[in-house]
Protein backbone atom coordinates (compact mmCIF):
# COMPACT_ATOMS: atom_id res chain seq x y z
CA UNK A 1 0.00 0.00 0.00
CA UNK A 2 2.79 2.36 0.96
CA UNK A 3 4.63 1.51 -2.21
CA UNK A 4 1.50 2.05 -4.27
CA UNK A 5 0.90 5.51 -2.82
CA UNK A 6 4.50 6.40 -3.59
CA UNK A 7 4.05 5.19 -7.16
CA UNK A 8 0.94 7.37 -7.46
CA UNK A 9 2.84 10.40 -6.19
CA UNK A 10 5.65 9.84 -8.70
CA UNK A 11 3.10 9.35 -11.47
CA UNK A 12 1.15 12.48 -10.63
CA UNK A 13 4.32 14.59 -10.61
CA UNK A 14 5.67 13.38 -13.93
CA UNK A 15 2.12 13.36 -15.31
CA UNK A 16 1.69 17.01 -14.42
CA UNK A 17 4.79 17.77 -16.51
CA UNK A 18 3.38 15.75 -19.42
CA UNK A 19 0.20 17.83 -19.04
CA UNK A 20 2.17 21.00 -19.67
CA UNK A 21 3.68 19.51 -22.81
CA UNK A 22 0.22 18.33 -23.86
CA UNK A 23 -1.11 21.86 -23.32
CA UNK A 24 1.68 23.19 -25.54
CA UNK A 25 0.58 20.80 -28.28
CA UNK A 26 -3.18 21.37 -27.83
CA UNK A 27 -2.84 25.17 -27.94
CA UNK A 28 -1.09 25.07 -31.29
CA UNK A 29 -3.43 22.45 -32.68
CA UNK A 30 -6.47 24.47 -31.66
CA UNK A 31 -5.22 27.77 -32.99
CA UNK A 32 -3.64 26.70 -36.26
CA UNK A 33 -4.48 22.99 -36.85
CA UNK A 34 -0.78 22.18 -36.91
CA UNK A 35 0.70 19.07 -35.30
CA UNK A 36 3.61 20.80 -33.64
CA UNK A 37 6.68 18.59 -33.27
CA UNK A 38 8.76 21.75 -32.91
CA UNK A 39 7.28 22.04 -29.39
CA UNK A 40 9.91 19.53 -28.25
CA UNK A 41 12.66 21.71 -29.70
CA UNK A 42 11.23 24.85 -28.13
CA UNK A 43 11.16 23.10 -24.74
CA UNK A 44 14.75 21.95 -25.19
CA UNK A 45 16.08 25.34 -26.29
CA UNK A 46 14.25 27.14 -23.45
CA UNK A 47 15.71 24.67 -20.96
CA UNK A 48 19.18 25.57 -22.22
CA UNK A 49 18.33 29.25 -21.85
CA UNK A 50 17.09 28.53 -18.32
CA UNK A 51 20.30 26.62 -17.54
CA UNK A 52 22.43 29.51 -18.78
CA UNK A 53 20.50 32.02 -16.67
CA UNK A 54 20.68 29.68 -13.68
CA UNK A 55 24.44 29.43 -14.12
CA UNK A 56 24.94 33.20 -14.11
CA UNK A 57 22.32 34.21 -11.51
CA UNK A 58 22.15 31.11 -9.36
CA UNK A 59 18.40 31.57 -9.00
CA UNK A 60 15.90 29.03 -10.26
CA UNK A 61 13.14 31.62 -9.83
CA UNK A 62 14.83 33.95 -12.31
CA UNK A 63 15.77 31.12 -14.68
CA UNK A 64 12.23 29.70 -14.93
CA UNK A 65 10.40 32.87 -16.06
CA UNK A 66 13.20 33.84 -18.45
CA UNK A 67 13.15 30.32 -19.88
CA UNK A 68 9.37 30.69 -20.33
CA UNK A 69 9.82 34.02 -22.12
CA UNK A 70 12.44 32.44 -24.36
CA UNK A 71 10.01 29.61 -25.16
CA UNK A 72 7.24 32.09 -25.97
CA UNK A 73 9.55 34.15 -28.18
CA UNK A 74 10.95 31.15 -30.07
CA UNK A 75 7.53 29.58 -30.55
CA UNK A 76 5.94 32.76 -31.91
CA UNK A 77 9.00 33.31 -34.10
CA UNK A 78 8.44 29.86 -35.63
CA UNK A 79 4.76 30.59 -36.22
CA UNK A 80 5.34 34.02 -37.71
CA UNK A 81 8.26 33.27 -40.02
CA UNK A 82 7.69 29.63 -40.98
CA UNK A 83 4.17 28.35 -40.40
CA UNK A 84 2.20 31.45 -41.33
CA UNK A 85 3.68 31.81 -44.84
CA UNK A 86 3.48 28.04 -45.28
CA UNK A 87 -0.17 27.80 -44.27
CA UNK A 88 -1.12 30.74 -46.52
CA UNK A 89 0.03 28.63 -49.46
CA UNK A 90 -1.18 25.22 -48.38
CA UNK A 91 -4.60 23.76 -49.09
CA UNK A 92 -6.61 20.60 -48.76
CA UNK A 93 -4.56 18.28 -50.97
CA UNK A 94 -2.98 15.32 -49.20
CA UNK A 95 0.61 16.38 -49.69
CA UNK A 96 -0.29 19.88 -48.49
CA UNK A 97 -1.77 18.54 -45.25
CA UNK A 98 1.55 16.84 -44.52
CA UNK A 99 3.51 19.97 -45.29
CA UNK A 100 3.19 21.72 -41.90
CA UNK A 101 3.84 18.46 -40.03
CA UNK A 102 7.07 17.85 -41.95
CA UNK A 103 7.94 21.50 -41.46
CA UNK A 104 7.65 21.30 -37.65
CA UNK A 105 9.71 18.08 -37.70
CA UNK A 106 12.34 19.92 -39.73
CA UNK A 107 12.31 22.85 -37.32
CA UNK A 108 12.79 20.41 -34.43
CA UNK A 109 15.89 19.09 -36.19
CA UNK A 110 17.18 22.59 -36.87
CA UNK A 111 16.75 23.64 -33.23
CA UNK A 112 18.68 20.58 -32.05
CA UNK A 113 21.45 21.24 -34.57
CA UNK A 114 21.73 24.89 -33.53
CA UNK A 115 21.87 23.90 -29.85
CA UNK A 116 24.58 21.42 -30.68
CA UNK A 117 26.48 24.13 -32.53
CA UNK A 118 26.22 26.58 -29.61
CA UNK A 119 26.68 24.22 -26.69
CA UNK A 120 28.68 21.42 -28.26
CA UNK A 121 29.09 18.69 -25.68
CA UNK A 122 28.39 21.04 -22.78
CA UNK A 123 25.40 20.12 -20.68
CA UNK A 124 22.74 22.48 -19.39
CA UNK A 125 22.35 22.07 -15.64
CA UNK A 126 19.09 22.78 -13.86
CA UNK A 127 19.90 21.65 -10.36
CA UNK A 128 16.86 21.22 -8.11
CA UNK A 129 16.14 24.46 -6.19
CA UNK A 130 14.69 22.44 -3.32
CA UNK A 131 15.56 19.16 -1.69
CA UNK A 132 14.48 16.08 -3.56
CA UNK A 133 14.60 14.00 -0.36
CA UNK A 134 11.17 12.70 0.48
CA UNK A 135 9.22 13.89 3.50
CA UNK A 136 9.32 11.48 6.41
CA UNK A 137 5.92 10.05 7.35
CA UNK A 138 5.82 7.75 10.39
CA UNK A 139 9.49 6.93 10.11
CA UNK A 140 9.50 6.23 6.40
CA UNK A 141 10.53 8.44 3.51
CA UNK A 142 7.68 9.00 1.01
CA UNK A 143 7.96 9.93 -2.67
CA UNK A 144 6.72 13.45 -2.00
CA UNK A 145 9.69 15.78 -1.65
CA UNK A 146 9.86 19.58 -1.40
CA UNK A 147 10.98 19.53 -5.05
CA UNK A 148 7.99 17.48 -6.20
CA UNK A 149 5.68 19.69 -4.18
CA UNK A 150 7.17 22.74 -5.89
CA UNK A 151 6.73 21.15 -9.35
CA UNK A 152 3.10 20.39 -8.61
CA UNK A 153 2.68 23.94 -7.32
CA UNK A 154 4.18 25.51 -10.44
CA UNK A 155 2.06 23.36 -12.75
CA UNK A 156 -1.07 24.09 -10.75
CA UNK A 157 -0.39 27.83 -10.70
CA UNK A 158 0.14 27.83 -14.46
CA UNK A 159 -3.06 25.91 -15.07
CA UNK A 160 -5.09 28.22 -12.87
CA UNK A 161 -3.59 31.22 -14.67
CA UNK A 162 -4.36 29.74 -18.08
CA UNK A 163 -7.91 28.86 -17.04
CA UNK A 164 -8.51 32.39 -15.77
CA UNK A 165 -7.07 33.91 -18.95
CA UNK A 166 -9.12 31.66 -21.21
CA UNK A 167 -12.41 31.85 -19.31
CA UNK A 168 -12.42 35.30 -17.76
CA UNK A 169 -10.62 37.74 -20.02
CA UNK A 170 -11.34 39.34 -23.39
CA UNK A 171 -8.05 37.94 -24.61
CA UNK A 172 -9.21 34.46 -23.66
CA UNK A 173 -12.50 34.99 -25.46
CA UNK A 174 -10.57 36.03 -28.60
CA UNK A 175 -8.31 32.99 -28.29
CA UNK A 176 -11.23 30.61 -27.95
CA UNK A 177 -13.32 32.24 -30.68
CA UNK A 178 -10.40 32.36 -33.12
CA UNK A 179 -9.71 28.67 -32.63
CA UNK A 180 -13.35 27.56 -32.89
CA UNK A 181 -14.40 29.77 -35.81
CA UNK A 182 -11.67 31.85 -37.45
CA UNK A 183 -13.91 33.29 -40.14
CA UNK A 184 -16.68 34.43 -37.80
CA UNK A 185 -13.99 35.86 -35.51
CA UNK A 186 -12.48 37.89 -38.32
CA UNK A 187 -15.92 39.18 -39.27
CA UNK A 188 -16.35 40.17 -35.61
CA UNK A 189 -13.19 42.25 -35.81
CA UNK A 190 -10.75 39.86 -34.11
CA UNK A 191 -7.23 40.03 -35.58
CA UNK A 192 -7.01 36.25 -35.91
CA UNK A 193 -3.45 36.20 -37.26
CA UNK A 194 -2.11 38.02 -34.21
CA UNK A 195 -4.20 35.87 -31.87
CA UNK A 196 -2.71 32.74 -33.47
CA UNK A 197 0.81 33.98 -32.87
CA UNK A 198 -0.17 34.62 -29.27
CA UNK A 199 -1.49 31.04 -28.99
CA UNK A 200 1.91 29.78 -30.17
CA UNK A 201 3.61 32.03 -27.64
CA UNK A 202 1.59 30.63 -24.73
CA UNK A 203 2.30 27.14 -26.07
CA UNK A 204 6.03 27.92 -26.09
CA UNK A 205 5.93 29.14 -22.49
CA UNK A 206 4.08 25.99 -21.39
CA UNK A 207 6.60 23.80 -23.24
CA UNK A 208 9.52 25.67 -21.68
CA UNK A 209 8.08 25.11 -18.21
CA UNK A 210 7.65 21.42 -19.00
CA UNK A 211 11.26 21.17 -20.17
CA UNK A 212 12.75 22.95 -17.17
CA UNK A 213 10.63 21.03 -14.65
CA UNK A 214 11.31 17.74 -16.41
CA UNK A 215 15.05 18.37 -16.21
CA UNK A 216 15.09 19.36 -12.57
CA UNK A 217 12.79 16.46 -11.70
CA UNK A 218 14.95 13.99 -13.61
CA UNK A 219 18.65 13.95 -14.35
CA UNK A 220 19.18 17.60 -13.38
CA UNK A 221 20.96 18.28 -16.66
CA UNK A 222 20.27 18.22 -20.36
CA UNK A 223 22.18 17.75 -23.62
CA UNK A 224 21.11 18.83 -27.13
CA UNK A 225 20.44 15.16 -27.88
CA UNK A 226 18.58 14.43 -24.66
CA UNK A 227 16.46 11.31 -25.00
CA UNK A 228 14.41 12.63 -22.08
CA UNK A 229 13.07 15.38 -24.32
CA UNK A 230 12.08 12.98 -27.07
CA UNK A 231 10.16 11.09 -24.41
CA UNK A 232 8.63 14.31 -23.11
CA UNK A 233 7.44 15.21 -26.61
CA UNK A 234 6.02 11.74 -27.24
CA UNK A 235 4.32 11.56 -23.84
CA UNK A 236 2.96 15.07 -24.34
CA UNK A 237 1.44 13.98 -27.64
CA UNK A 238 -0.03 10.82 -26.18
CA UNK A 239 -1.50 12.84 -23.29
CA UNK A 240 -2.96 15.41 -25.71
CA UNK A 241 -4.57 12.71 -27.83
CA UNK A 242 -5.92 10.84 -24.78
CA UNK A 243 -7.47 14.12 -23.69
CA UNK A 244 -9.15 14.64 -27.01
CA UNK A 245 -6.51 16.99 -28.59
CA UNK A 246 -8.96 19.94 -28.49
CA UNK A 247 -9.26 20.46 -24.78
CA UNK A 248 -6.95 22.03 -22.20
CA UNK A 249 -8.77 20.20 -19.41
CA UNK A 250 -8.41 17.02 -21.45
CA UNK A 251 -4.67 17.61 -21.80
CA UNK A 252 -4.33 17.79 -18.02
CA UNK A 253 -6.45 14.69 -17.43
CA UNK A 254 -4.55 12.88 -20.21
CA UNK A 255 -1.18 13.88 -18.80
CA UNK A 256 -1.89 12.85 -15.23
CA UNK A 257 -3.54 9.60 -16.33
CA UNK A 258 -0.57 8.74 -18.49
CA UNK A 259 1.89 9.68 -15.72
CA UNK A 260 0.17 7.42 -13.20
CA UNK A 261 -0.12 4.44 -15.57
CA UNK A 262 3.51 4.75 -16.65
CA UNK A 263 4.69 5.02 -13.03
CA UNK A 264 2.76 1.85 -12.17
CA UNK A 265 4.30 0.03 -15.13
CA UNK A 266 7.76 1.30 -14.19
CA UNK A 267 7.28 0.09 -10.62
CA UNK A 268 5.60 -3.25 -11.14
CA UNK A 269 6.49 -4.37 -14.68
CA UNK A 270 9.79 -2.86 -15.72
CA UNK A 271 11.41 0.28 -17.06
CA UNK A 272 12.05 -1.08 -20.55
CA UNK A 273 8.32 -1.32 -21.20
CA UNK A 274 7.43 2.32 -20.40
CA UNK A 275 7.92 3.75 -23.90
CA UNK A 276 6.11 0.82 -25.43
CA UNK A 277 3.28 1.10 -22.90
CA UNK A 278 2.64 4.74 -23.82
CA UNK A 279 1.84 3.65 -27.36
CA UNK A 280 -0.34 0.76 -26.21
CA UNK A 281 -2.34 3.25 -24.13
CA UNK A 282 -2.58 5.58 -27.12
CA UNK A 283 -3.82 2.80 -29.40
CA UNK A 284 -6.31 1.55 -26.80
CA UNK A 285 -7.75 5.04 -26.32
CA UNK A 286 -7.99 5.59 -30.07
CA UNK A 287 -9.77 2.24 -30.48
CA UNK A 288 -12.19 2.63 -27.58
CA UNK A 289 -12.67 6.40 -27.43
CA UNK A 290 -11.52 7.90 -30.73
CA UNK A 291 -12.39 11.40 -29.53
CA UNK A 292 -10.33 11.07 -26.36
CA UNK A 293 -11.53 10.36 -22.85
CA UNK A 294 -13.35 13.62 -22.48
CA UNK A 295 -13.85 14.39 -26.16
CA UNK A 296 -17.43 14.73 -27.33
CA UNK A 297 -18.28 13.58 -30.82
CA UNK A 298 -18.82 16.52 -33.12
CA UNK A 299 -18.43 18.94 -30.26
CA UNK A 300 -15.45 20.89 -29.03
CA UNK A 301 -14.77 22.09 -25.57
CA UNK A 302 -12.95 24.98 -24.07
Amino acid at each position, binding site marked *: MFEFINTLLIGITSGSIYSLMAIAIVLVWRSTRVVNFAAGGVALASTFVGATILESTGSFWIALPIGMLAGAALSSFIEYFFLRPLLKRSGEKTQEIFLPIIATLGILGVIKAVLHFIYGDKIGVISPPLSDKGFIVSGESIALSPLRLMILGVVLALMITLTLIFQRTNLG*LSLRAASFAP*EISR*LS*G*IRVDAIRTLGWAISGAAGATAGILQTTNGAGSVTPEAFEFSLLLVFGFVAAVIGGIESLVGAVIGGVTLGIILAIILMYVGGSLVFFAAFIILILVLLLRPNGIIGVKGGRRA
Partner: protein
Amino acid sequence: MLRIKNLVVDHGAIRALHGVSISIEKGQLAAVIGANGAGKTTLLRTLSGLNKATDGSAAWGEINILHSKPESLVRYGISHVSEGKSVIPELTVSENLELGALWRRNRKESEKSKKDVVDLFPRLGERLSQRADSLSGGERQMLAIGRSMMAKPQLLLLDEPSLGLAPLVVEQIFQSIRDLTTALGLTVVLVEQNAMGALKIADIGIVLNLGSIAATGSAAALRDDPAVRAAYLGF
Protein backbone atom coordinates in the same frame (compact mmCIF):
# COMPACT_ATOMS: atom_id res chain seq x y z
CA MET B 1 -23.36 55.20 -49.72
CA LEU B 2 -22.12 52.01 -51.29
CA ARG B 3 -20.77 52.27 -54.84
CA ILE B 4 -19.75 49.09 -56.63
CA LYS B 5 -18.33 49.46 -60.13
CA ASN B 6 -17.59 46.66 -62.60
CA LEU B 7 -16.81 44.19 -59.85
CA VAL B 8 -15.20 41.01 -61.18
CA VAL B 9 -14.53 38.08 -58.85
CA ASP B 10 -13.01 34.70 -59.76
CA HIS B 11 -13.02 31.44 -57.84
CA GLY B 12 -9.96 29.82 -59.34
CA ALA B 13 -10.80 29.27 -62.99
CA ILE B 14 -14.49 30.05 -62.54
CA ARG B 15 -15.70 33.61 -62.88
CA ALA B 16 -18.32 34.21 -60.19
CA LEU B 17 -19.10 37.88 -60.87
CA HIS B 18 -18.81 39.39 -64.36
CA GLY B 19 -18.51 43.11 -63.80
CA VAL B 20 -21.33 44.01 -61.42
CA SER B 21 -22.20 47.66 -60.74
CA ILE B 22 -24.54 48.60 -57.90
CA SER B 23 -25.30 51.83 -56.03
CA ILE B 24 -27.04 51.78 -52.68
CA GLU B 25 -27.88 55.03 -50.92
CA LYS B 26 -27.34 55.51 -47.21
CA GLY B 27 -30.29 54.25 -45.20
CA GLN B 28 -31.54 51.97 -47.93
CA LEU B 29 -32.31 48.29 -47.55
CA ALA B 30 -31.29 46.51 -50.74
CA ALA B 31 -32.40 42.95 -51.44
CA VAL B 32 -30.11 40.89 -53.67
CA ILE B 33 -32.04 37.96 -55.08
CA GLY B 34 -31.32 35.24 -57.61
CA ALA B 35 -30.95 31.50 -57.99
CA ASN B 36 -28.25 29.31 -56.43
CA GLY B 37 -24.87 30.06 -57.96
CA ALA B 38 -25.91 33.53 -59.12
CA GLY B 39 -23.02 35.06 -57.18
CA LYS B 40 -24.98 36.55 -54.27
CA THR B 41 -22.80 35.13 -51.50
CA THR B 42 -19.64 35.92 -53.48
CA LEU B 43 -20.77 39.55 -53.72
CA LEU B 44 -21.17 39.83 -49.94
CA ARG B 45 -17.94 37.98 -49.17
CA THR B 46 -16.05 40.32 -51.48
CA LEU B 47 -17.59 43.39 -49.86
CA SER B 48 -16.57 42.21 -46.39
CA GLY B 49 -13.03 41.32 -47.46
CA LEU B 50 -13.32 37.53 -47.22
CA ASN B 51 -12.94 37.06 -51.00
CA LYS B 52 -10.49 38.81 -53.28
CA ALA B 53 -11.76 40.84 -56.22
CA THR B 54 -10.10 40.37 -59.59
CA ASP B 55 -11.12 43.73 -60.98
CA GLY B 56 -13.42 46.69 -60.39
CA SER B 57 -13.94 48.91 -57.39
CA ALA B 58 -16.16 49.19 -54.35
CA ALA B 59 -16.37 52.15 -52.01
CA TRP B 60 -18.30 52.72 -48.81
CA GLY B 61 -18.42 56.49 -48.51
CA GLU B 62 -14.83 57.59 -48.82
CA ILE B 63 -13.38 54.19 -48.01
CA ASN B 64 -12.17 51.82 -50.68
CA ILE B 65 -13.31 48.47 -49.35
CA LEU B 66 -11.63 46.08 -51.77
CA HIS B 67 -8.23 44.77 -50.70
CA SER B 68 -9.03 45.25 -47.01
CA LYS B 69 -9.23 42.55 -44.38
CA PRO B 70 -12.60 41.78 -42.75
CA GLU B 71 -11.22 42.59 -39.30
CA SER B 72 -10.27 46.06 -40.57
CA LEU B 73 -13.56 46.70 -42.36
CA VAL B 74 -15.46 46.05 -39.12
CA ARG B 75 -13.64 49.08 -37.74
CA TYR B 76 -15.03 51.15 -40.63
CA GLY B 77 -18.59 50.16 -39.75
CA ILE B 78 -19.04 47.28 -42.17
CA SER B 79 -20.44 44.14 -40.61
CA HIS B 80 -21.10 40.86 -42.38
CA VAL B 81 -23.35 38.11 -41.04
CA SER B 82 -22.23 35.12 -43.05
CA GLU B 83 -24.45 32.36 -44.37
CA GLY B 84 -26.00 29.72 -42.13
CA LYS B 85 -26.62 31.12 -38.63
CA SER B 86 -23.13 32.35 -38.07
CA VAL B 87 -22.69 31.94 -34.35
CA ILE B 88 -19.95 30.10 -32.46
CA PRO B 89 -21.73 27.10 -30.92
CA GLU B 90 -19.08 26.44 -28.26
CA LEU B 91 -19.45 29.89 -26.74
CA THR B 92 -22.32 31.15 -24.63
CA VAL B 93 -24.89 33.56 -26.02
CA SER B 94 -23.36 36.31 -23.94
CA GLU B 95 -19.82 35.51 -25.17
CA ASN B 96 -21.00 35.47 -28.79
CA LEU B 97 -22.39 38.95 -28.30
CA GLU B 98 -19.33 40.28 -26.46
CA LEU B 99 -17.13 38.94 -29.24
CA GLY B 100 -18.73 41.40 -31.66
CA ALA B 101 -17.66 44.38 -29.56
CA LEU B 102 -14.22 43.23 -28.38
CA TRP B 103 -12.37 45.36 -30.92
CA ARG B 104 -14.02 48.47 -29.47
CA ARG B 105 -12.09 47.89 -26.23
CA ASN B 106 -14.75 49.58 -24.19
CA ARG B 107 -16.54 47.38 -21.70
CA LYS B 108 -19.13 50.00 -20.80
CA GLU B 109 -20.12 50.62 -24.40
CA SER B 110 -20.14 46.88 -24.98
CA GLU B 111 -22.53 46.33 -22.04
CA LYS B 112 -24.79 49.05 -23.39
CA SER B 113 -24.83 47.51 -26.87
CA LYS B 114 -25.60 44.13 -25.32
CA LYS B 115 -28.59 45.67 -23.55
CA ASP B 116 -29.77 47.15 -26.86
CA VAL B 117 -29.54 43.76 -28.56
CA VAL B 118 -31.43 42.10 -25.72
CA ASP B 119 -34.14 44.79 -25.99
CA LEU B 120 -34.38 44.00 -29.68
CA PHE B 121 -34.39 40.20 -29.22
CA PRO B 122 -35.72 39.52 -25.69
CA ARG B 123 -35.40 35.77 -26.21
CA LEU B 124 -31.63 36.12 -26.28
CA GLY B 125 -31.81 37.88 -22.92
CA GLU B 126 -33.34 34.79 -21.32
CA ARG B 127 -30.53 32.61 -22.67
CA LEU B 128 -27.41 34.72 -22.11
CA SER B 129 -25.52 32.08 -20.13
CA GLN B 130 -26.48 29.12 -22.36
CA ARG B 131 -24.17 27.74 -25.01
CA ALA B 132 -25.18 28.94 -28.47
CA ASP B 133 -25.64 25.36 -29.70
CA SER B 134 -28.63 25.02 -27.38
CA LEU B 135 -30.53 27.70 -29.32
CA SER B 136 -33.20 27.12 -31.96
CA GLY B 137 -32.50 28.09 -35.56
CA GLY B 138 -34.38 31.37 -35.25
CA GLU B 139 -32.64 32.29 -32.03
CA ARG B 140 -29.27 31.57 -33.61
CA GLN B 141 -30.08 33.92 -36.45
CA MET B 142 -31.10 36.56 -33.92
CA LEU B 143 -27.80 35.99 -32.13
CA ALA B 144 -25.84 36.30 -35.39
CA ILE B 145 -27.55 39.59 -36.22
CA GLY B 146 -27.18 40.68 -32.60
CA ARG B 147 -23.47 39.99 -32.67
CA SER B 148 -22.98 42.13 -35.73
CA MET B 149 -25.02 44.93 -34.12
CA MET B 150 -22.55 44.88 -31.21
CA ALA B 151 -20.01 46.45 -33.61
CA LYS B 152 -22.32 49.45 -34.17
CA PRO B 153 -22.21 48.98 -37.93
CA GLN B 154 -23.44 51.46 -40.53
CA LEU B 155 -23.37 48.98 -43.39
CA LEU B 156 -24.85 45.58 -42.63
CA LEU B 157 -24.30 42.66 -45.02
CA LEU B 158 -26.74 39.82 -44.37
CA ASP B 159 -26.39 36.46 -46.11
CA GLU B 160 -29.60 34.43 -46.20
CA PRO B 161 -30.92 35.06 -42.71
CA SER B 162 -34.05 33.05 -43.58
CA LEU B 163 -32.13 29.87 -44.42
CA GLY B 164 -33.70 26.82 -42.82
CA LEU B 165 -36.16 28.73 -40.66
CA ALA B 166 -39.89 28.17 -40.23
CA PRO B 167 -42.08 30.67 -42.17
CA LEU B 168 -43.33 32.37 -39.03
CA VAL B 169 -39.78 32.86 -37.74
CA VAL B 170 -38.66 34.14 -41.15
CA GLU B 171 -41.36 36.80 -41.02
CA GLN B 172 -40.20 37.84 -37.56
CA ILE B 173 -36.52 38.05 -38.58
CA PHE B 174 -37.37 40.05 -41.70
CA GLN B 175 -39.47 42.44 -39.61
CA SER B 176 -36.57 42.92 -37.18
CA ILE B 177 -34.23 43.68 -40.07
CA ARG B 178 -36.65 46.26 -41.45
CA ASP B 179 -37.12 47.86 -38.02
CA LEU B 180 -33.37 48.01 -37.37
CA THR B 181 -32.70 49.61 -40.75
CA THR B 182 -35.28 52.32 -40.16
CA ALA B 183 -34.56 52.93 -36.48
CA LEU B 184 -30.77 53.17 -36.80
CA GLY B 185 -30.55 54.55 -40.33
CA LEU B 186 -28.50 51.52 -41.40
CA THR B 187 -27.62 50.66 -44.94
CA VAL B 188 -28.34 46.98 -45.53
CA VAL B 189 -27.47 44.54 -48.28
CA LEU B 190 -29.73 41.53 -47.79
CA VAL B 191 -28.94 38.46 -49.87
CA GLU B 192 -31.92 36.11 -50.05
CA GLN B 193 -33.31 33.00 -51.71
CA ASN B 194 -36.66 33.98 -50.27
CA ALA B 195 -37.16 36.62 -52.95
CA MET B 196 -40.74 37.55 -52.06
CA GLY B 197 -40.02 38.02 -48.37
CA ALA B 198 -36.91 40.08 -49.09
CA LEU B 199 -38.59 42.31 -51.67
CA LYS B 200 -41.45 42.97 -49.24
CA ILE B 201 -39.17 44.68 -46.72
CA ALA B 202 -36.57 46.11 -49.12
CA ASP B 203 -36.39 49.59 -50.63
CA ILE B 204 -34.60 48.46 -53.75
CA GLY B 205 -33.99 45.09 -55.36
CA ILE B 206 -31.16 43.67 -57.40
CA VAL B 207 -31.58 40.47 -59.36
CA LEU B 208 -28.39 38.53 -60.03
CA ASN B 209 -28.22 35.83 -62.68
CA LEU B 210 -25.05 33.80 -63.38
CA GLY B 211 -22.81 36.53 -62.04
CA SER B 212 -24.43 39.48 -63.81
CA ILE B 213 -27.21 41.88 -62.93
CA ALA B 214 -30.43 40.76 -64.60
CA ALA B 215 -32.73 43.45 -63.24
CA THR B 216 -32.66 46.27 -60.75
CA GLY B 217 -35.15 48.83 -59.51
CA SER B 218 -37.38 49.70 -56.59
CA ALA B 219 -38.46 46.65 -54.64
CA ALA B 220 -42.11 47.40 -55.38
CA ALA B 221 -41.46 47.64 -59.13
CA LEU B 222 -39.55 44.33 -59.12
CA ARG B 223 -42.37 42.64 -57.24
CA ASP B 224 -44.73 43.66 -60.05
CA ASP B 225 -42.33 42.91 -62.92
CA PRO B 226 -43.78 39.92 -64.83
CA ALA B 227 -40.35 38.58 -65.81
CA VAL B 228 -39.05 38.74 -62.24
CA ARG B 229 -42.26 37.21 -60.94
CA ALA B 230 -42.03 34.30 -63.31
CA ALA B 231 -38.35 33.61 -62.77
CA TYR B 232 -37.86 34.30 -59.05
CA LEU B 233 -41.16 34.69 -57.27
CA GLY B 234 -42.77 31.61 -58.75
CA PHE B 235 -46.12 33.03 -59.84
